[in-house]
């Protein structure tokens, strides 16, 4: 590595970071200045920055209620994902008849878009009496195949001898998962938390279908409602976007190290 200078790599990374961060900066800048996004020449530094578009958003819709709904649904989704995906991931590390078929089934099911399963999901949720409830809003996202494979990859990287030793000591499979595997798979857990949070937080289609009362709506639905009668206010719209995005970005920044580790664990097994 010492043979080649590192600055070209850093330069390329800086350029890539700039390209990716500019849209975020533009949204943030417009949210505090309300400037016309089509103005030419565009101003890089916000003129007369103020927080009042955020105040407008707060009072234009029941933001606190929508935020609470999104938080509750996301927490339910995260807990369900960590528990169910860990169990599923652990089972896929075991040897059993038809394991390859199950893996193939899982992989092929990843290609089915959620939109095609909405009607059965709606009917099942309705039969369970969970429509227009927090549990019903979280139900279709209780387990995701990608996150199962994240756990599987992480569990695969744990030496088999450790599981055998735990089994000889008399631990059940349940205890092996929670007392042996999970403490060694914190990165996979962080990845599960972040991915399930982001998917749940940003989900629009399912809450649109599964909610009936305005009190049960989540933030993406609130954004759609807000757009319907505040379409002339660019600053307020962008402020709303920042308020919706902020929790996800904060969570990612908090757990980014674990997140990246979780995505790459198992990639260099052995």
């Amino acid at each position, binding site marked *: 590595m010492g043979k080649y200078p590192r600055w070209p790599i850093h330069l390329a990374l800086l350029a890539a970071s700039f390209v990716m961060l500019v849209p975020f900066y533009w949204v943030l800048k417009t949210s505090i200045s309300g400037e016309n996004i089509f103005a030419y020449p565009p101003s890089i530094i916000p003129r007369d920055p103020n*927080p009042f578009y955020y105040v407008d958003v707060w009072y234009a819709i029941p933001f606190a209620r929508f935020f609470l709904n999104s938080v509750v649904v996301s927490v339910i989704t995260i807990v369900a994902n960590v528990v169910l995906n860990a169990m599923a991931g652990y089972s896929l590390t075991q040897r059993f008849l038809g394991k390859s078929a199950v893996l193939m089934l899982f992989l092929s099911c990843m290609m089915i878009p959620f939109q095609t399963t909405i009607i059965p999901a709606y009917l099942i949720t309705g039969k369970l009496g969970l429509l227009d409830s927090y549990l019903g809003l979280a139900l279709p996202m209780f387990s995701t195949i990608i996150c199962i494979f994240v756990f599987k990859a992480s569990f695969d990287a744990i030496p088999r001898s450790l599981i055998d030793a735990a089994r000889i000591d008399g631990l059940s499979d349940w205890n092996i998962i929670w007392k042996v595997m999970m403490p060694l798979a914190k990165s996979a857990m962080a990845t599960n938390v972040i991915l399930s949070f982001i998917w749940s937080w940003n989900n629009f289609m399912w809450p649109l279908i599964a909610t009936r009362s305005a009190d049960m709506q989540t933030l993406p639905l609130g954004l759609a409602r807000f757009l319907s009668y505040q379409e002339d206010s660019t600053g307020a719209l962008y402020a709303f976007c920042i308020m919706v995005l902020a929790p996800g970005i904060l969570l990612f920044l908090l757990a980014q190290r674990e997140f990246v580790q979780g995505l790459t664990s198992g990639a260099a097994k052995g």
Partner: protein
Amino acid sequence: MNDEDISRPKWKRWLLNRFVLVPAALVLITVGWNLWVVTHDHGIVEGRVVDAAGAPVEGAEVRLWVFNFATFVVKASTTTRPDGSFEFADNPSHNIQVSAEKPGTGRSARVPIRLYFASEDFVLKDPLRLTDGS
């Protein structure tokens, strides 16, 4: 986790990490902000009205305009005291305007006022100046 982390007491490892400290800081900020709001949301809007020469105007009608969906509507009105001061005590909004008028003296422009929260107590720094009274 390095050796130094492991040697720390368990409670420190649980409490003194970014997953606890950042949410705790956010909770503290939220509680502090709400305390500030609760103690400053009486809906009081105060100010003064002066004439073109800068002298206080008594008996001028001051109107409080409140943003209502798409436009501003008059929410309340009051008259100024002998020293030209006025006060509204029931502003419900965060986006308001105030204007003053007195026949024979003139009228002021509508002054927009943006507040950080609804019903925030506010004192107008510059007086409302009545002009063009003819």
